[in-house]
C-alpha cells in the first residue's frame, strides 16, 4: 500500500526544511520526498494549504491500563492521541499494578500492537511498586521495551535511590524522568501556594517543593554524569535552575505542559476540580518564566501529562478531587492558537519541541524527522481552521478537561502512523 501526500508545506526541523513538497510512503516508511512525485498506484492525500510535520510525540501520558480501564485504556488513549495529532505516546508506569517488571511492559506492547492506533512506548518504574526503595530490574525492563524510567506520581524522595538509579541508567543509556516534588512541603496541598490559595482558603503547594527537588536532581546528574529529565516543570525557580545547569554542561532536560503554559492559579477561583492538577497551576510570575524558558531553549519538549479521571471522581469537594487533567486532544490546537499564532514561538520551533526533541531524548530511531527511510509518522496541521473544544466529542474515556468551550485557531487535519491514516478531521 502506497500513500502519496501531495502539495503540503513540509516542515522538518531536523533538516531545516520548509517548502511545498510531495511525500511518498511505502511499507510504513518514507520512500521519496520531492517537489513533484507522480505515481499511479498510490492513495493520494491532498495536503495543499496544510502543514506536514514529523509525527508528534508525547512523552508523558497516563493510559491507566492495566487496572483503571474505566478512566482510559490503551485503545481509547491511543484514539485520543491520534485525534490530537500524536503519532507516538509514552505511558507512565503508575498503573495498577505498576509497570515495574518486564511482564507488564510486554503486556502493554502486546496489547498496543492489537488495540492501539498510535505507537505506544512504555516508561517503566524506577523502583519496585513505585515505593521509592528498591530499583526495578532496569536492564530487563529496557530489554522488554521500556524507553525510559520514572516513578511519576510518587516522587522519589530518597536521594540515594535517585543517585543509584542515575548511575545504573548509564549502563542502559535510558532517560530517568523525575516528577520533582518534596512530599513534606507539598503535603495536604490542593493548589499553588500564594495569594490566591490564601484568599480561597485552600492548602497550598509551594514552588519550593518542586525547586528543591530539581536542585537535588541536577546536582546528582552532575556528580553521576547521567542524564536527568524534569517532568512537567512549573516554577520560575525550576526554570532558573535548569537554565543554569545547562550552562554548566549538566545533562538535564525538561518538559512543560500546555496547561502550565496557558493557565494560572487565577482559574481556581470557582473551585472547579477540572483545574486541579499536580504540579498545580502556578501564578502569572511562574507562567511567564515558563514561556521565557520555552523561548530560550531551557525547555526541551512539550508533554501533556494526560491524566484521565472519571466524572464521579472529579465531582466532589475540591480538596478531595484527584489531581490531573486530560491533554492529548487539545495540546496542538492550544499551542498553535496561543503560541504560534501569537508569534511567541515559530511553527518550526513548535514542531521541533513536539516531535524532533522527544525523539532525541528517548532515542527513538527513525522518528521525529521527515527523511527517506524514516518511519512514516506524520502530523498534518490546518493552521487556519477554528475549533471549539468539546469534551463530548473526545475519544478519551474521560472528560476532565479545563478547556471545554474554548475557541482555538489551528487544528489537526490528519494523523498518519506507519503510513496508515489513523485520524482524519
Amino acid at each position, binding site marked *: 500500500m502506497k500513500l502519496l501526500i501531495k502539495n503540503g508545506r513540509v516542515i522538518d526541523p531536523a533538516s531545516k526544511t520548509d517548502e511545498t513538497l510531495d511525500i511518498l510512503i511505502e511499507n510504513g516508511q518514507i520512500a521519496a520526498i520531492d517537489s513533484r512525485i507522480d505515481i499511479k498506484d498510490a492513495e493520494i492525500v491532498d495536503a495543499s494549504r496544510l502543514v506536514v510535520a514529523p509525527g508528534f510525540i508525547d512523552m508523558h501520558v497516563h493510559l491507566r491500563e492495566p487496572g483503571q480501564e474505566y478512566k482510559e485504556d490503551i485503545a481509547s488513549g491511543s484514539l485520543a492521541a491520534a485525534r490530537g495529532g500524536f503519532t507516538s505516546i509514552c505511558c507512565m508506569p503508575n498503573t495498577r499494578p505498576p509497570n515495574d517488571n518486564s511482564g507488564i511492559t510486554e503486556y502493554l506492547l502486546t496489547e498496543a500492537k492489537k488495540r492501539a492506533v498510535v505507537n505506544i512506548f512504555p516508561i517503566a518504574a524506577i523502583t519496585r511498586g513505585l515505593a521509592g526503595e528498591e530499583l526495578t530490574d532496569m536492564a530487563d525492563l529496557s530489554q522488554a521495551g521500556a524507553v525510559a524510567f520514572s516513578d511519576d506520581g510518587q516522587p522519589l524522595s530518597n536521594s540515594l535511590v535517585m543517585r543509584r538509579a542515575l548511575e545504573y541508567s548509564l549502563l542502559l543509556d535510558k532517560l530517568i524522568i523525575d516528577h520533582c516534588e518534596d512530599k513534606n512541603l507539598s503535603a495536604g496541598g490542593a493548589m499553588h501556594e*500564594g*495569594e490566591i490559595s*490564601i*484568599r*480561597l*482558603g*485552600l*492548602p497550598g503547594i509551594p514552588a519550593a517543593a518542586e525547586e528543591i527537588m530539581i536542585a537535588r536532581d541536577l546536582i546528582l546528574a552532575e556528580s553521576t554524569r547521567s542524564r536527568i529529565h524534569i517532568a512537567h516543570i512549573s516554577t520560575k525557580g525550576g526554570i532558573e535552575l535548569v537554565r543554569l545547569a545547562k550552562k554548566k554542561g549538566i545533562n538535564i532536560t525538561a518538559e512543560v505542559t500546555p496547561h502550565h503554559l496557558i493557565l494560572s492559579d487565577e482559574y481556581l477561583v*470557582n*473551585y*472547579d*476540580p477540572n483545574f486541579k492538577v499536580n504540579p498545580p497551576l502556578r501564578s502569572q510570575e511562574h507562567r511567564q518564566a515558563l514561556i521565557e524558558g520555552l523561548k530560550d531553549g531551557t525547555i526541551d519538549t512539550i508533554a501533556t501529562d494526560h491524566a484521565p479521571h472519571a466524572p*464521579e471522581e472529579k*465531582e*466532589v*469537594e*475540591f*480538596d*478531595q478531587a484527584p489531581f490531573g487533567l486530560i491533554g492529548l486532544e487539545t495540546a496542538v490546537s492550544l499551542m498553535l492558537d496561543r503560541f504560534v499564532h501569537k508569534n511567541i514561538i515559530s511553527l518550526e520551533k513548535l514542531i521541533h519541541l513536539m516531535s524532533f526533541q522527544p525523539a532525541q531524548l528517548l532515542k527513538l530511531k527513525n522518528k521525529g524527522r521527515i527523511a527517506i527511510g524514516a518511519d512514516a509518522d506524520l502530523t498534518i496541521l490546518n493552521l487556519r481552521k477554528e475549533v471549539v473544544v468539546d469534551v463530548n466529542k473526545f475519544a478519551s474515556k474521560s472528560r476532565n478537561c479545563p478547556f471545554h468551550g474554548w475557541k482555538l485557531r489551528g487544528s489537526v487535519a490528519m494523523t498518519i502512523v506507519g503510513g496508515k491514516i489513523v485520524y482524519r478531521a
Partner: protein
Amino acid sequence: MNPETSLEFRHYHLLGIEDLEASEIMTILDTAESMAEISRRDIKKVPTLRGKTVVNLFFEPSTRTRSSFELAAKRLSADIVNFSLPTSSVVKGETLKDTVRNLEAMAIDALVVRHASSGVPHFIASFCQSHVINAGDGTHEHPTQALLDAYTIRQYKKRIKGLKVVIVGDILHSRVARSNLFLLRKLGAEVVLCGPPTLLPPEFSKMGAKIEYNLEKALIGADVIMMLRIQRERQKANFFPSIREYRHLYCLTPERLKLAKKEAIIMHPGPINRGIEIDSSLADSVQSVILKQVENGVAIRMAVLYLLLGGKERETAD
C-alpha cells in the same frame, strides 16, 4: 419591612463576603435591624417566607450555626429540614453532586451549606437551582458570622469606618478571619491580624490587612478585639511548639487588655477555649460581647434568608 431594600441586594446566593459591595452589606445589616425587632416580640413569627423550604445541609457538626439558621427560618415561617451528613463524599461513596441533586429533587428553595472543605458552596451553586447560603466552608469564608460581627460592632460603636479591629489567633485556617477581613475593609475599618508567623502568611497584607506578630503591639489603641479559637491539632503540624507557649504569647489577659482603648469590646466566634486564647474572666467581663454575637446571629440569618428568598425570581446579576 421596607420591600425596596431587596432591590439593593441582587445576589442569588450568599457564598462569601468577597462578592458583596459595601452597599449590599449595609442592606443586610439594616434589614437585620428590623428582624431583631421581630425576635423581641412576644410572638416571634412573621409569615414572610411561608411556603418556602430551607435545608440545613451540614457536613460538619455545628449546633450553634445550625440552630441559628433554624430559628431564623422558623421566625420567618419557612419550613426547615436538617440534613447532617457527617462525612465527605469520598467516605460516603456518593458524589457531592448526587447528594445535592437528591435534595433538590424534593423541591427546596434554599440550601444552607456547612462543609469542612473550602469551596463546597461555590461548587454546589455551580449546578444547583436553589439559593445557596454559605454557613462556613473549610478555611475559606463564613459570611453570616462576619455579618453578625459587623452588626454587633455597629451596635456598640455606632460605626465601623475608622475603627481599629484586631483579630488574633490562627488566621491561616480561619474562615471567620477571612470573612471579617473582607467585610471590615469594605466598610473602612483598619484591620490588624495577629498571630505567630506560621499561622499568618504575608499574603494577608495584599488583602488589606496589617500584620503584627506581637500581641501587645497589636492591641495598642484597639476598638475591637476578636479572639479566634486555636485548635490543638495545629501543634502536631508544627504551627506552634506547644499550647503553653501559644498561651504565653497570644492569650488575651487583663494586663494585655489595658493596652487597648478603655471601651474596647471583646469578641469570639465560639466555641471558646477558656484559658488558652482568652482569660476566663475576660470572656465573662462587661467588655465581652460574645453572647450578644450569638443573639445577633439569628437576626442576621433572618435578613439573609429574607433578602434571598423574599425577593423576586432569579436574576442575571448574580
